[in-house]
């Protein structure tokens, strides 16, 4: 079975689990302390966070412990994992999800409205309103569909928007990418060719 990353874009509000202390939050997973510590480090946290109480945590730490906990399951479920986290942590999260998929063969489901992030990590996108799936498809199909995105008020990933703008302004089709380095190569190839 091919592991893949599914992104779900919806409009629901999600209540966040709170526990009195962080250790309790993790012990619920039934995982060994060793695995828990590994997961914390992967999520960019210091293991000393285990001794803290939930309410002492900053908003980014709260997001990261949820990520660390999700990584411990066979199927990784992440809800709004990029909420309140900075760009370096986001880059780290992209790496972790790719690791989960490619090295650990885990299926990953992410619920988020952060389309720049989803575009980097997801293979397949499902759009939901309430409990209904309104549309779904491979990410390039969904994220390049201007009318669809406009209809559901979904922000087009910046890297896709760039290629679209080139198409509109210069009538040149440089193709769509999910990585800025690959986009760079496309631009380079094209500009050099035109000289």
């Amino acid at each position, binding site marked *: 079975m091919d592991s893949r990353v599914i992104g779900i874009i919806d409009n629901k509000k999600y209540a966040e689990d709170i526990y009195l202390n962080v250790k309790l939050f993790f012990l619920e997973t039934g995982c060994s302390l060793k695995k828990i510590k590994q997961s914390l480090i992967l999520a960019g946290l210091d293991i000393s966070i285990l001794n803290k109480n939930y309410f002492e945590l*900053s*908003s980014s730490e709260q997001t990261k412990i949820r990520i660390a906990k999700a990584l411990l399951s066979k199927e990784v479920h992440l809800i709004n994992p990029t909420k*309140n986290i900075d760009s370096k*942590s986001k880059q780290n999260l992209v790496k972790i999800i790719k690791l989960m998929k490619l090295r650990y063969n885990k299926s990953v489901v992410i619920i988020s409205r952060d389309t720049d992030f989803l575009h980097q990590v997801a293979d397949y996108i499902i759009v939901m309103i309430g409990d209904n799936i309104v549309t779904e498809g491979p990410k390039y199909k969904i994220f390049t569909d201007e009318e669809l995105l406009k209809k559901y008020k979904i922000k087009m990933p910046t890297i896709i928007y760039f290629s679209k703008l080139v198409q509109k302004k210069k009538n*040149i089709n440089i193709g769509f990418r999910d990585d800025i380095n690959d986009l760079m190569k496309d631009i380079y190839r094209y500009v050099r060719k035109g000289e």
Partner: protein
Amino acid sequence: MGLLNIKNLTFKYKDKEVFNKLNLNIRKGSFTTIFGNNNSGKTTLVKLIMGLETSTNIYFEDKMINQENRQKIGVVWSNPSVMFMGNTVLEEISFPNYNQKDVLSIASELNIANALNKSISELTENEEYLVALATALIRKPKLLIFDGTLANFSHRYLKSLTKKGITIINFTTDPDEILLGTYTIFLNEGKVYFQGSLNRILNNLNKLEEFFGMPFIIELSEKLMFYDLIDKPYTSMQRLINDLWIAE
């Protein structure tokens, strides 16, 4: 002088020092981005400004900040529903005693007039943020603060607020938002690491990239500069595309 002034602010939270003699100035009428990584002290600073934590080193319109002059500051917090006190949208926006006419006016401006009778618990996340903004704007603030929440609102609308004379501070971790304001203050580990206009930022990219992520267009510009396809960083995608394919 600045609208908001922070002078030599030192603040500890439990045993951890968050700020050590922090100095910060927000000019009246500006749209300032305070950009910081996690744990740089952003939320703590908002709390200090709004009185959720105590400090004597914060000045608003040259007077020490207090219960009274704080009334002229509106905040859109990152978890607005935690702050809500009413049962319906109407109750929430009119709190404590704004009249219906003013409530209707601001609700119409934000396109939530038809949600006034909705229960707070029924709101979508986007509606929540609009209600939070409405409660901040109804008090006719001189200063409007966003704590990581700017992305929920249209840029055009926000710029219209600055045109009306409202000073805006946007606390954020999103590099692309640097392009929205007129001035950016980079916070790192409780200190001002760097500050300046967009031009100044473009001239100091190497220094900033050590600690901070950059907007997509600037990252792309740097890669293009490395391959000699352009000679300076761009902040406008349109202009970059124009200049990149000058000869078709």
